[in-house]
């Protein structure tokens, strides 16, 4: 079975740039806001939105917490300088700590979710202030694995990179001129010191992207992936993780009572009338 995760960065760049421009301008906006974490995903969404809308129309937001890596803040600044966009830096420690101290011994997961949601509050507040729509930064790998905080980092008005696996985002990043230091560093949500995505997930993006490509894009059955050489435990873990996190990928189900119900038989695109 063939696994081809390579992309033509110029083609993808053209489509995604047009997507951002179309989906923002058709609803009467001309600007975007984006949380820049200093990682490759937000760097790519940011660069694409600058190309689509112009640097003056993209607001870069940095939301450091007191334990955030200094690299994150610094790499975000490198991008802001490189693309020449307006920016704001709004530390979230004073927003989240009063909630965290209420419960001594709170788990890292809970703290991380609170931080992700605090950053969402900042982004949507800046959205109103800057009159720009919130750009999403979640890639296909993390959407499928559910490696995201619901109503936190996953919250956005539109997501240009959600159909690109992590390994494809890196290829696009090179085409967009994102600095190597950002592309090459270990991916991290930076919710606690020393956290890395691959450490927390227990496998590498390079491995899981290949498996997801077979399971999702090519519709191979899990047992066929095991026959192809992936370990049975790995395939089961990933498949189950994808299934279990479906709730993060859909709107909450509405209990149907009437003859026409939002989510079932009230069917319009978001772009209705535009």
């Amino acid at each position, binding site marked *: 079975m063939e696994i*081809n995760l390579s992309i033509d960065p110029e*083609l993808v760049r053209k489509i995604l740039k047009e997507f951002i421009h179309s989906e923002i301008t058709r609803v009467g906006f001309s600007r975007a806001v984006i949380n820049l974490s200093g990682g490759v995903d937000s760097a790519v969404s940011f660069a694409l939105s600058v190309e689509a809308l112009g640097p003056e129309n993209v607001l870069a937001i940095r939301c450091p917490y007191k334990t955030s890596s200094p690299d994150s803040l610094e790499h975000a600044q490198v991008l802001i300088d490189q693309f020449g966009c307006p920016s704001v830096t709004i530390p979230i420690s004073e927003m989240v700590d009063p909630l965290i101290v209420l419960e001594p011994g709170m788990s890292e997961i809970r703290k991380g979710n609170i931080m992700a949601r605090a950053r969402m509050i900042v982004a949507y507040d800046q959205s109103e202030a800057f009159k720009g729509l919130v750009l999403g930064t979640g890639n296909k790998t993390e959407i499928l694995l559910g490696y995201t905080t619901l109503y936190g980092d996953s919250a956005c008005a539109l997501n240009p990179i959600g159909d690109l696996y992590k390994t494809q985002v890196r290829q696009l990043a090179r085409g967009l001129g994102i600095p190597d230091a950002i592309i090459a560093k270990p991916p991290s949500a930076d919710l606690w010191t020393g956290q890395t995505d691959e450490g927390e997930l227990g496998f590498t993006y390079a491995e899981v992207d290949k498996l997801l490509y077979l399971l999702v894009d090519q519709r191979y059955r899990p047992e066929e992936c095991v026959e192809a050489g992936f370990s049975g435990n790995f395939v089961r873990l990933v498949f189950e993780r994808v299934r279990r996190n479906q709730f993060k990928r859909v709107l909450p189900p509405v209990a149907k009572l009437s003859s026409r119900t939002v989510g079932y038989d009230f069917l319009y695109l978001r772009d209705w009338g535009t």
Partner: protein
Amino acid sequence: MPKLGISWEGMDEKPKMTAITAMAGNQRRILLLSFMVSSIIKFVQSFLLLIMKINLALAQINTTLGKVQINLDKHLTIAKQAVQDGVDILVFPELSLTGYVLQDLVPAVSCRANINDPIFKYLLDASRSVDMVVGFVDEDTRHRFYVASAYLSQGKVAHVHHKLYLPTYGLFDEGRFYAPGNSVRAFDTRFGRFGMLICEDFWHASPPYLLWQDGADMLLLSSAAPGRGLNNEPKLETSTWVELINKAYASLFTTFVAHANRSGFEDGLNFMGGSTIFDPNGKLLCQAPYFEESVTKAEIDLNQLNRTRARLPLLRDERPELVLHELARILNK
């Protein structure tokens, strides 16, 4: 208007004239008269073998979802410009008057292709200056809805095609909202006999085949094809595939194949553009850019049909009765 030329085949009568001058009296006058009559007949016949060149334009537009009036205005603006540019036939994409992912908007945007329709009356008026293929939702008298294309010419509706195959799989959900068409017919125009198909119709081999056998020398295909399929090639897999099959139909049926696709986005779907015209040799005559709005024109030399089919008589040698016979056997198994 078409630019006309004359085929000079069979016009060299010089040896016969020499023989006539050698005769005498009534016999010579009768023969001379008969020669003049035959020359006039041949001259008239030569007009029937016109080398017809027509200008065909593919209007690769973006549309506003569910706003028929806005889309109508765009059609009329492009048609007006096309007339100034000497275009003879202007082909718009699938559902060009409405947008593609209509879902519950279908009943709100439907039209009827006649002069009493508040949308079509303007299109029919415009068709007095340029022939047009437009895409719309057709509502029949029993209130069934069809994905439709209409060929408009000289103020009249020459033909309406209802999409035969409604994709209802993957990202598509057409079968939920539309009724399928039940006929595939070629039709006569002032430029020759043509056939229209819509998107999924020509992912099946039989509708183009039937139009070919029904006399269509040009297939006018329209799509609102969402681009998809990523690899390291500089175009999407859907573009590669649709170009391959259009070229194949042109080559296998030794016919012209013009395909108008749309551009723009609806939510996350990109419409990939890249509209094409292939000639009866399977040669690409023109291609619109990917993803962008454009009006792309090519001059069509209809006499290429003559040259290609003289070289490669696939139409002459095709055996539809064999197809009919074997299909009857297969279906009666």
